[in-house]
């Protein structure tokens, strides 16, 4: 069991500077996250605008256009969904402050939670919280202040460069150490944000609530049970003797007549439908 320690400050600076330089050089190829449309609002979510040192807010509403100098702020039991022009989807949770930077394609979480879907081949981006920074490409994941869980794709923590693949989460501890651990993917779709306004784009089948298990369970129902050969024997109204003969449990398929009479009345191809003599 190994604990990964943070890099020294000097090394961090070297890594960050180099990555920034490469990022800036590459930025020209990548379309910015210019604006996003609010596609759903639940309860009390504010749309904020920063002007100099001041910020002003008003209630957010569907179809609001959020730009890079804007932010969204949700209250308790309140959520919102944002959709970017490149198909990126962000859902913010309760008591969250979220903004983004257009040119650097950075999703900023000041506090709270969000889940995101960023389509592949659209230029990727960066997630920044008060605790960590991560480079993302085509990915589905969940984010809180000190935690990021990856459901699809892969992210790279900055500046360490450590990868967090699908099925793993990174947690930044209070002492600065980082845990990268596997989590139970069967619970990947837990949480209101995962189904708020429908399943996230490209989510696999489990988003439908164990649909596979549901279909698996279609196998046997009462029509199967009450139509088994033993049941047909038990329930068949064409039985030659209308007595309440119990079902032929443990009977062999072709019971030998115990008495010479009555003779069999059904074809030999279907003896089990014939009740045994009383």
């Amino acid at each position, binding site marked *: 069991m*190994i604990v*990964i320690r943070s890099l020294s400050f000097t090394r961090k600076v*070297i*890594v960050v500077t*180099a990555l*920034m330089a490469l*990022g*800036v050089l590459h*930025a020209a190829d*990548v379309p910015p996250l210019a604006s996003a449309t609010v596609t759903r609002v639940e309860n009390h979510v504010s749309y904020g605008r920063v002007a100099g040192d001041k910020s002003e807010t008003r209630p957010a509403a569907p179809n609001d256009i959020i730009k890079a100098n804007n*932010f969204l702020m949700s209250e*308790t039991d309140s959520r919102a969904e944002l959709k970017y022009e490149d198909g990126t989807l962000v859902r913010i949770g309760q008591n969250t402050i979220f903004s983004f930077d257009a*040119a*650097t394609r*950075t999703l900023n979480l000041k506090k709270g*939670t969000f889940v995101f879907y960023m389509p592949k081949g659209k*230029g*990727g981006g960066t997630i*920044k919280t008060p605790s960590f*920074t991560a480079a993302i*490409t085509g990915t589905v994941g*969940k984010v*809180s202040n000190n*935690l990021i*869980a990856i459901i*699809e794709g892969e992210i*790279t923590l900055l500046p360490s*460069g*450590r990868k967090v693949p699908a*099925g793993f989460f990174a947690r930044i501890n209070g002492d600065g150490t980082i845990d*990268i651990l*596997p*989590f*139970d993917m069967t619970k990947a779709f837990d949480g*209101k*944000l995962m189904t708020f306004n*429908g*399943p996230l784009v*490209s989510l*696999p*089948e489990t*988003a*439908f609530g164990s649909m*596979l*298990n549901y*279909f698996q369970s*279609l196998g046997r129902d*009462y*029509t199967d*049970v009450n*139509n088994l*050969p*033993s049941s*047909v024997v038990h*329930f068949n109204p064409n039985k030659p003797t209308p007595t309440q003969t*119990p*079902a032929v*449990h443990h009977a062999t398929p072709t019971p030998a007549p115990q008495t010479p009479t009555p003779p069999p009345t059904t074809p030999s191809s*279907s003896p089990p*439908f014939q009740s045994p003599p009383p």
Partner: protein
Amino acid sequence: MALPAFSMKARFITPSLLLLLGLCGSVFAQDGKTYTYHTQGSLAQSSKQSAQEVEDIGQIDEEGGSTTLRDKLRFNINFQTAYTTNALLQGNHGSGDVLFLPSLDVGFHTALSKHFNFDLDTKVDSVIYSRFQDRGIVGYSAQATLDYHIKQGLPRFYATLEPYRYESFDTGQLQTEAIGFTGGTDWGVPFNGGRTLGFVGYSFTEYLSDPDIDTRMVHRAVVGLAHQIRTNLTLQLYYVYQFSDYTDFDRSDSKHTISGNLIYQFNDHWYGSFTTSFINNGSTQEHAAYQSFSTSLGLSLHF
């Protein structure tokens, strides 16, 4: 709010990190592993998610680590009222009846590794007929399933062990009991922006039964579609083909089922459903062939 520019594609990140790794020499040597694993002790020291975080993004914890038993357990109580045109399951639609189908199941699910999951489901269910009361049954069953999922988006493979026992509801007399061994695969493909799921599956089950005449081999294939109409309303349509070959008895059945469901989620615990289905069961035994049409309303409590 934003940090300086970090925007880049992964193909730039990877070479740049490799370059930096080379430049920095042994910087990463001491902790070159991508993943770290902690002891229970160190996990205990780490910060926990708040209740609001759990509500919004679910509990995220080390697999098999501090996940509680309660997280792995599930309970379902289901009440269903159905009308069928053929309660006797003979001929075509000549014996209409109203049925009550209560069931209770308790399940346990755990991930064994990144690719393997284990699920155990125990169930008590009953069918109570209004008109043909002697047909009422009560069943006790369990399903232990080990499944293997290579990765999300690819088919899943599973093996199931399934004992069951059905008794007459009135007399308590054994009607049938068996143990089933199943191997199967299924595959779901989401499309339409993730709102629709196409589904195909196949399974083979061998049931060793008491009485012996119920012993059979069953091939089952399913094609289905699930569509999320609204956040809390899902439509399911599916077709199931089932071929049963009775090994100790001269009988084989071909059963076709077409069904449609509407499932409405009232809240985290309560679900309502409306179901219709048509069954055409062909059999080499005259008395076992039938057609039926059923419709039902159901209410489920899940926690």
